[in-house]
């Protein structure tokens, strides 16, 4: 008899392992490297984040004269959040940043 049969029949009566994702949210653990948030007030414009970003994803926003992150290039490494002297950049736990448009 095939060895996997008991497992297969048991699975038939168990709740599926799959999480119904868009309806059921999964909370990422503490310290998850998600979307970056910039606190514009705290930024002292030292540009350390721009120099440290390995993906060259941070540029200076023309209007506000503050760094702005191009999420399309960002690799979510977290270097910028680590290096920022005033903790103006932080990593949130948000991971739903799929979009149809480049932002």
């Amino acid at each position, binding site marked *: 008899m*095939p060895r*996997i*049969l008991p497992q*297969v*029949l048991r*699975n*038939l009566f*168990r709740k*599926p*392992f*799959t999480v*119904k994702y868009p309806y059921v949210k999964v909370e990422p653990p503490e310290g998850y490297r998600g979307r970056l948030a910039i606190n514009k007030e705290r930024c002292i414009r030292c540009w350390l984040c721009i120099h440290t970003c390995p993906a060259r994803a941070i540029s200076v926003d023309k209007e506000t004269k503050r760094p702005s992150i191009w999420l399309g290039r960002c690799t979510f490494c977290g270097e910028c959040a680590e290096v920022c002297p005033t903790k103006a950049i932080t990593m949130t736990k948000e991971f739903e940043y799929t979009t149809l448009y480049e932002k």
Partner: protein
Amino acid sequence: MMEVLSFFFNSLVFPGLLFASLIGLLYAGIDRKVTGHMQHRIGPPIWQEYLDVGKLMGKEDITPSAAQSLVFNVAPLIALGAVTTVMLLLPVNSAQPALTAVADLIVIIYLLNIPAICLMLGGYSSGGPFGSVGAARYVVQLFSYEFVFILAIIAVIARVGSLDLTAVVGYQAQRGWLILDLRLIPALIAMIISAQGKLMRVPFDIPEAETEIVHGALTEYSGPKLAIWRIVYNIETLVVAGFIAALFLGGPVAYTIGGFQIPGVADFLIKTLIIVLITTILRNIMARLRIDQALKFYWTFAAFLAVLSLMLVLVVP
């Protein structure tokens, strides 16, 4: 006039094309759903197969330029005709099939082979290497399972003493189902094994092994033609299940429970569903065999079971 009308009704609506394809697609959906749960995931909704076929129907009809287009285009239609005809010859609502012409088991066996032959033709004529390999594999597979399939049927014929499917069902109505006859159990097992090969399910999905030869003979098919192949395949599943049900499980029986007349077709659906679910379980607990291993398996183990059953029927009173 009445006869012509009822013929058209039979072949197009019940138990012909419409009924068979609706139920066939539903069974395919159930099969996929149950498979999903067996693999500890959710699986597609039960009506997924309707959506898939509907989507394919609405697509552009493409014939590859390398294909021999007549054979390539006609193959799915002939296959569809053949399986629908078998549906008419099967006892679906009562022991009497819809088409009461004199057609016995031999005809059904032949008709059941037509989709296979069409598949090979389609594969060879598609002009792609995967189609040819798939068709070549299916030829080998046909020669492996068909022998066992026929031997198992012969065991039943020897037991009942008639070549007529109606007679087989009638016999079971009087003397009990053939599955209860211990001598025929090996034949039933052999039959299910060969059905697994006929329906190209794991471990015998060799002719359409996805990771090896993409989709075998059907690789070049797309759009409506592929949709027809899907319908053919699903009706074939239903037909083979119905055939096994008629041979071993007593065919459709009408019951009366508490004054309600339950038609034989309900019984037919339950029995065929059980058989389809057995094949579903089988396909989820094994890996695919190689073609030479499948050939060996059929000609040794499965053939042995069928012959054993035949011997028992002939020797043991």
